[in-house]
């Protein structure tokens, strides 16, 4: 039981707009064990991003329970959830989300700085080396290509050695070559760090590289399959 990192119980999310109620997530339940890799697929609008947001505590469900590392996120304050994320969670976004006013190195260091850790420069430099940006520590995001920015984001995600990494369409904004490189880095680093990975994607090939695939449709979890990994 202890190795369950993420557990969702009957997660439901409804939006009340004007007069109608819109249920975008309908009683979704699943759990993810430590070190597992999992992808969430489904057509556009099926609720993948919504689910990811709830799992990471970026949003609260209308009903149901979401727990991360045994911590029940629903009941926590926004700031407490932020603290939990900082302790256990890493993120990779479709649109990179780097701080424009910080250099690549500084961007990578921020999560550890938030923890108040010292002497982290070497670790950050090492991670940037790992993603192939050894010579670009002091470059600003605007001086980097999209692929390079996403590599900085990967380094930032891994610097805290997170228990779980959430990625929403990490290659969605990239061309084939860059996408392949990011994929390789993502899975590679994930293996090295033994991180649990939750990946949202449209790309079935990419999904096939995870151990488990959840298929969403119309806000419901319609399939939970184990991938036949090569």
């Amino acid at each position, binding site marked *: 039981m202890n190795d369950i990192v993420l557990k969702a119980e009957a997660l439901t999310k409804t939006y009340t707009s004007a007069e109608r109620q819109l249920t975008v997530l309908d009683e979704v339940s699943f759990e993810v064990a430590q070190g597992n890799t999992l992808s969430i697929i489904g057509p556009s609008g099926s609720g993948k991003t919504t689910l990811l947001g709830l799992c990471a505590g970026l949003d609260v469900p209308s009903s149901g329970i979401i727990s991360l590392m045994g911590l029940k996120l629903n009941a926590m304050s926004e700031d407490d959830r932020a603290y939990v994320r900082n302790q256990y969670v890493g993120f990779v*976004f479709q649109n990179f989300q780097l701080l424009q006013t910080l250099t690549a190195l500084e961007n990578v260091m*921020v999560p550890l700085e938030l923890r*108040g850790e010292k002497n982290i420069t070497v670790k950050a430099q090492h991670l940037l080396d790992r993603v192939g940006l050894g010579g670009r520590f002091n470059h600003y995001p605007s001086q980097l290509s999209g692929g390079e920015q996403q590599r900085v984001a990967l380094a930032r995600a891994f610097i805290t050695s997170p228990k779980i990494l959430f990625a929403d369409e990490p290659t969605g904004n990239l061309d084939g070559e860059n996408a392949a490189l990011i994929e390789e880095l993502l899975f590679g680093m994930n293996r090295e760090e033994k991180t649990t990975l939750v990946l949202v994607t449209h790309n079935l090939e990419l999904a096939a590289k995870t151990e488990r695939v959840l298929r969403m449709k119309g806000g419901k979890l319609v399939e939970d399959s184990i991938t036949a990994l090569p």
Partner: protein
Amino acid sequence: MIEYRIKVARPLKNIFTDAWVWRMALRDARHNFSRLFLFAASLITGIAAVVAIGSINYSIQRDLDKNAKELLGADLVINSSKKIDSNLLKLLDSTNTEKAFDADMASMVLFLHNQQSRLIKLTALKGNFPFYGKLETKPANAYALMKSGKFALLDESLATQYEVSTNDSIKVGNTIFKVAGVVTKIPGGGGFTSTISPSVYISMDVLDSTGLVQFGSRVGYSLYLKTKEADTQAIIDKLEPTLKKLNYTFETVKSRKEGLGDALKSVYQFFALLAFMALLLGCIGVASAVHIYAKEKREEVALLRCIGSSGWQAFNIYFIQVFCVGLLGSAIGSALGIAIQQVIPIVFNDFIPAQLQFSLSWEALLEGLLLGSIISVLFTILPLISVRFVPPLSTLRAEVKQVKVVSKTRMVAILLIVLFPVLAAAYQTQSIVTGALFSIGLAVVLAGLYGIGALLLYLSRRFFPHHAAFTFRHALSNLFRPNNQTRVLVVAIGLGAFILATLNIIQNSLLNQVEFQGGKNQSNTILFDIQPKQKEGVLQLIKGTGLPMNQVVPMVTCRLAEVKGKSVETILNDSTDKRPEWAVSREYRVTYRDSLTKPETLLEGKLQRFEKGQKDSVFVTISEAMHETLEVNLGDSLVFDIQGVPIKTFISGIRKVEWSSDPPNFIFVFPSGVLENAPQIWVATTRIEDAVVSSKFQQQLVTRFSNVSLVDLRLILNTVNKLFSKVAVAIRFLSMFSIITGMIVLAGTVSNSKFVRMKEYVLLRTIGARTKQISAITLIEYAYLGFFAAMAGVVLSLGAGWLLTFFFFKIQFSVNAAELLLVTLGVISLTVVIGWLNSRSVISTPPLQVLRKEA
């Protein structure tokens, strides 16, 4: 059922212990410094103005304490309308005091070198006045020379105006004086007094030779006393009963200091509020800029929250930035204020007695810094607080709606922001009421500007010029770009325009009023102090010169002895009696006639002729205002003391009097048949169109009837104009601070919207616009902005000007359209220039750089 943990041990750090937020603030500021600095710059001018005015106030107060005696020139001054009583002087003989005398009166002076003449204040001096301070003259020995015989000293302004130099001669009354020199500084003088009534000084020994002191002439006598410090109060105590009995007043160093302090305080309050207005404008600029800044930082904040920063941490990062630049701005502003203080004496010379000097004031400097820090907290917290509630979810989904959070901090901030202008203005003026009134007034003005601005913008959208040239259309729609600060700018720039335009309207209406009175067929020349035996001669002179005889009125000087059966003494000693002392004890000048004049209307009762035989019943009429002040009504009795003869009267009518039109007008009018034999003088009024005729007439009058004084309304018009110009210079000087603040806010906005503008320009370039067109669009955009702001200011000033002229000045509203147009054009040009200067770099940015940032 599984047990979940819901508590986490989150370490709480405050802004001082959290090194990370400081590091982030610094890192982030590297890229925003110039922009951040523009927020702070909005504060610089306001703080500078407040510090400069405050510093002057402190140094004046200090100087007032130090040089108080020099303001009076003596320890004690006794004033009277009669020659100082010999009994009083005898009383003083036994004390250890030194005496000096002065007598002053209105008189005509004739400048012999150019045969011009005018009404002046004649001051005759005797003794060693002043005991403290110095009467400074040019040449230096002129005062001694004056005392030696028939020599005169002139106020410097008078000498300059009539081009009088030493050794010229002037005629005052029957005597010709040689000019000994000019007075540059005299205790109690200087400032406005010499502008309103310039003085000619002579020795008291030769006063009688002028023949001016005769019956009916109004002379003020003063006795200056130098006592040993400790004696002053003892001497006052000793003299007071006698002074009271004689109806004399006195002034001590302390009362003069307080009086002057009060007068200067109102001047200070007025200018301090003007300066404060510039500061508040800066506050609005800061708040508006920080609001946009916070909006733009939302994405960054969402990411920070995603990776674990708390709401307060995110808030602190940006708060540290804006607070620090705010502090920097205040420091620069305070330093600038001290620098400006060196310039200010030039602008404010006329408000400050010449004896006072300026020095640097640390209190003002500290106040400036403190004020700046308070503002940097207060006006940044509110717009920044939203940062705390940015949902981290917006990293995943761009258009997450931010829920309006009612936070305690926000409520407190709003409350403090509302209170700030009230409290700060109250502190500056040392009066809660003034502070509150000022804040309400300012709120009304700002709301008015905002409303008019919003209406103009709405109209320009509603009636959008779809057929205008591309550049014009595009420039106009630029004003409505997302995150625009157009309305704030209209308010900020509009306030400057508003102050200038209102000032202009008031000046115009005041001048127009005086001119209006001189206009039509009304009198513009008044002859005073005509002795009964001179009456025929003067009238002859008027007729002989071909001038109309508008009014010839007798005037009798008297006092009240009894009101409604109560003696004046009883009323004065009765502390429960609310009637003001001045109204009861003053000297009244009354006339007699059996009809109303043009400026008069009868409100109640009637005019009742005096019929011989019915001895006691003399019926007088009273002016409306005095009927209220003295609390007397139809039928009430009044006993007048007419040169020692008591005359009992009853009130038969109440008149409304249009005081400013066709003088002289009177509070009490007697029926004819009562005062004909009382000692009296005559007043005649006429109208002189031509300046040459006027000058000739005055010259003849002075030569033949040297004691008759002539008031030339044209001269008064001139004086009013001169006075107003002096006030206007000072007001304009301070309203410039508001305008400059508005311009800095504009510069800040331009740099705030830099990126949006760049994108627009790149887009325009891609679709084929040339640099020239892009420049044109920019210029036209600022011209529109300037136009809207100026219009909002001018339209509002028309309303404010009307209210002020109607309710406060009670004069006719008058506008000079050409000058208002000038204000409008000035504001537009300034806006275009500032906008253009700040946009050049944007226009010249290569498009590629913008595309990169887009990613």
